[in-house]
């Protein structure tokens, strides 16, 4: 690893940790309905919306009411998306005259965006009208992200309150998160992205004259280049900040119009990690113990650094399959002859190995799923790191809200295991962790894991599914494993060689995305409800403190242990087998 790579990594993490505290404090105030500086601007709009919807800011919901509201609202979003996909040819802002989406891909995509997965079985620039991208996909980018943060807020309230049932109002949380956090941040980020070169226009695609004609396959020379454009920056901003990841273009943030420079790429990495990291501070504020949030953030950062180091090392070593050819994969830094070196297939020159591996770690550690390089072409061990980051349950900063609530489930498991070791009733933040909480926590871990493994098994057993694999041998298995790891953990990135737009993959990943989102979100709300009803016990001599370095190490160990025990056999069949074969 060069000094320059280290400098880029340090810059991102340094700025992230600097911004996380003030933003986290601000978000905490928004979630607790305290006064914030945007009040004069936004408050009237907020009040108007409540009046229209017939709700009050003081409304209360127990965990079942909260869960039902999340489900109903997701259902409405699903129907709206489907309607838009099926009628886009009749609606305005469709300069390329895109036809309606077929049912299979329409349903898969609707599920994908409602669950904050943003798995894409379609190519954006050749499928979606500008209106669909804005009114459909951009809107769900906001709302699915807001839902994740809302559920985290409900869990924090459950931990904080005593002998209570009230977890707050989902509608109020949804509104405040969208109006006070997501919209202003996106607005700011979108304008910065445009300044750096991301396109934002509603006009038709410009047509350029090529430098020299390209010989088409049918023998006819191609003289022109159609430059697909659109309202990209506005969608890009929330795609990144809401850890959504669904790209405007097929090649996502590798496309120069979506991610034009190394600086825009670094800012996108920062944007992906910003809200998930900051929420640790919001959480600490909400439970009145900042050290708790800091411990969780430390565990996340530790896991992030391990993954980043491994991924960068694997990719910088290059591709052994090019051995014997007169090709250099060595990093060079002489002025006038610089070369990034390493495994450059599926990577953009402006990002190099450093920019691509940093992005890949951030996007798979959170449930973002945006990519600035093609993970399918990563070295086997590099691909393994991205797979594992998803399989761990998206807790390395994680999705907005969902990352932290899943990490809190791991914290509950960690105190439970510690309790078993010393023979005491485990507690977390003064709340006794009993059979119900432990069962629900197990569901949060087991449902996505089962979905990954069963889905992958089906994909390699059914002949119709096997046809989707684009790479031969062990890597083909990795493609299926990646698809279900991504869908079941609501990531959305892919080993994109996979032919994902088939009846099998559209329906199987659709189910996996649903299970991954609601199979974790509902048990988390159940835990929140159960914890809220308990009294608070003061810490005794046998209580495991959950804020010190000991607990951080314990938490990291539990996350890695659960992930390794569940997925090592599958990883051995895919990336590890491929690695051994390739090294020869």
């Amino acid at each position, binding site marked *: 690893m060069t000094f320059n790579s280290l400098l880029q990594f340090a810059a991102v993490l340094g700025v992230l940790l600097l911004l996380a505290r003030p933003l986290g404090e601000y978000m905490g105030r928004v979630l607790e309905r305290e006064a914030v500086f945007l009040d004069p601007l936004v408050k009237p709009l907020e009040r108007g919306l409540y009046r229209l919807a017939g709700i009050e800011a003081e409304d209360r919901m127990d965990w079942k009411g909260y869960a039902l509201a999340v489900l109903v609202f997701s259902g409405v979003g699903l129907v709206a998306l489907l309607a838009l996909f099926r009628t886009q040819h009749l609606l305005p802002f469709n300069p390329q005259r895109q036809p309606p989406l077929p049912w299979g891909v329409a349903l898969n995509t609707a599920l994908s965006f409602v669950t904050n997965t943003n798995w894409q079985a379609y190519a954006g620039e050749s499928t979606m009208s500008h209106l669909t991208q804005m009114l*459909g996909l951009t809107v769900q980018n906001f709302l699915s992200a807001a839902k994740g943060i809302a559920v985290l807020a409900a869990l924090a309230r459950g931990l904080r309150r005593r002998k209570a049932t009230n977890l707050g109002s989902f509608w109020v949380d949804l509104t405040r998160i969208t109006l006070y956090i997501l919209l202003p941040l996106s607005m700011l980020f979108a304008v910065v992205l445009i300044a750096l070169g991301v396109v934002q226009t509603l006009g038709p695609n410009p047509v350029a004259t090529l430098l020299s004609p390209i010989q088409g396959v049918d023998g006819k020379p191609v003289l022109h*280049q159609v430059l697909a454009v659109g309202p990209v920056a506005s969608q890009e901003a929330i795609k990144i900040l809401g850890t959504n990841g669904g790209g405007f273009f097929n090649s996502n943030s590798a496309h120069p119009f979506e991610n034009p420079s190394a600086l825009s790429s670094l800012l996108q990495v920062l944007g992906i990690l910003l809200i998930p990291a900051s929420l640790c501070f919001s959480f600490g504020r909400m439970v009145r113990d900042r050290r708790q949030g800091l411990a969780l953030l430390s565990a996340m950062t530790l896991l992030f650094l391990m993954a980043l180091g491994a991924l960068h090392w694997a990719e910088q070593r290059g591709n052994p399959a090019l051995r014997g050819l007169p090709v250099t994969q060595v990093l060079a830094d002489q002025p006038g002859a610089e070369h990034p070196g390493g495994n450059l297939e*599926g990577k953009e*020159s402006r990002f190099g190995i450093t920019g691509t591996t940093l992005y890949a770690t951030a996007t798979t550690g959170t449930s973002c799923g945006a990519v600035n390089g*093609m993970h399918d072409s990563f070295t086997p061990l590099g691909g393994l790191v991205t797979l594992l980051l998803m399989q761990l349950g998206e807790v390395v900063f994680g999705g907005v809200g969902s990352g932290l609530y899943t990490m809190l489930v791991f914290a509950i498991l960690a105190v439970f295991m510690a309790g078993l070791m010393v023979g005491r009733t485990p507690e977390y933040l003064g709340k006794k962790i009993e059979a119900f909480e432990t069962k629900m926590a197990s569901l949060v871990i087991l449902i996505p894991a089962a979905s990954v493994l069963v889905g992958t098994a089906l994909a390699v057993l059914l002949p119709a599914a096997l046809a989707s694999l684009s790479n031969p041998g062990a890597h083909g298995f990795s493609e299926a494993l990646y698809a279900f790891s991504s869908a079941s953990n609501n990531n959305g990135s892919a080993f994109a*060689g996979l032919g994902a737009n088939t009846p099998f993959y559209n329906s199987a990943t659709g189910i996996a995305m649903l299970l991954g989102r609601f199979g974790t979100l509902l048990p988390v709300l159940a835990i929140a409800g159960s914890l809220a009803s308990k009294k608070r016990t003061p810490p005794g001599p046998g209580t495991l403190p959950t804020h010190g370095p000991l607990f951080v190490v314990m938490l990291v160990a539990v996350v890695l242990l659960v992930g390794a025990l569940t997925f090592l056999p599958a990883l051995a069949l895919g990336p590890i087998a491929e690695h051994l074969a390739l090294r020869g």
Partner: protein
Amino acid sequence: MALLRPALVFAAAFSVLCGLAYPLSVTGIGLVAFPRQARGSLLVREGRLRGSELIGQHTEDPGYFWGRLSATQDAEGRPLPTNAANSSGSNLAPSHPELRKHAERRIAALRQADPSNTSTVPADLVTASASGLDPHISPAAAAYQVPRVARVRHLDPEKLRTLVRAHTRDRTLGFIGEPCVNVLELNLALESMR
């Protein structure tokens, strides 16, 4: 059902706010404050649109600098390099036999265009970019091609190296990203030297 009214109201309200007001106001701000970038950083020469500063163009004319390999396809799924209406990488795994074949084919084409150049080829010239539209190559990849382009165009290699340097972008703030040569801009500059 008490939940249906708020669900419908918030769905409609946020569709208008996040799906229309937000993107349309960003579009407005973009077109006023950064019109060039918002429209795609287009390169116009002598009144003709020649491409975008951000989008590569495939060429195998020995008198031009060549870019990365591109795995993009046309609407029917047939190979059409640097098709900016359908971005895509190759998605070939390192172990895929095709990946090595693509590299071999590129090396053969480079050697055929310049048999006198026997130095090793920088890896970025024999691998496909992630988008298939990468506008850049590394300075090493440009330096590798200087003798060929100079010979075909009857230019002084030293003069050509100066031109390459003028189209090389160093790391932002001295440490962000990789030094890159913009191939299309460099090639357009070659044209105007004629």
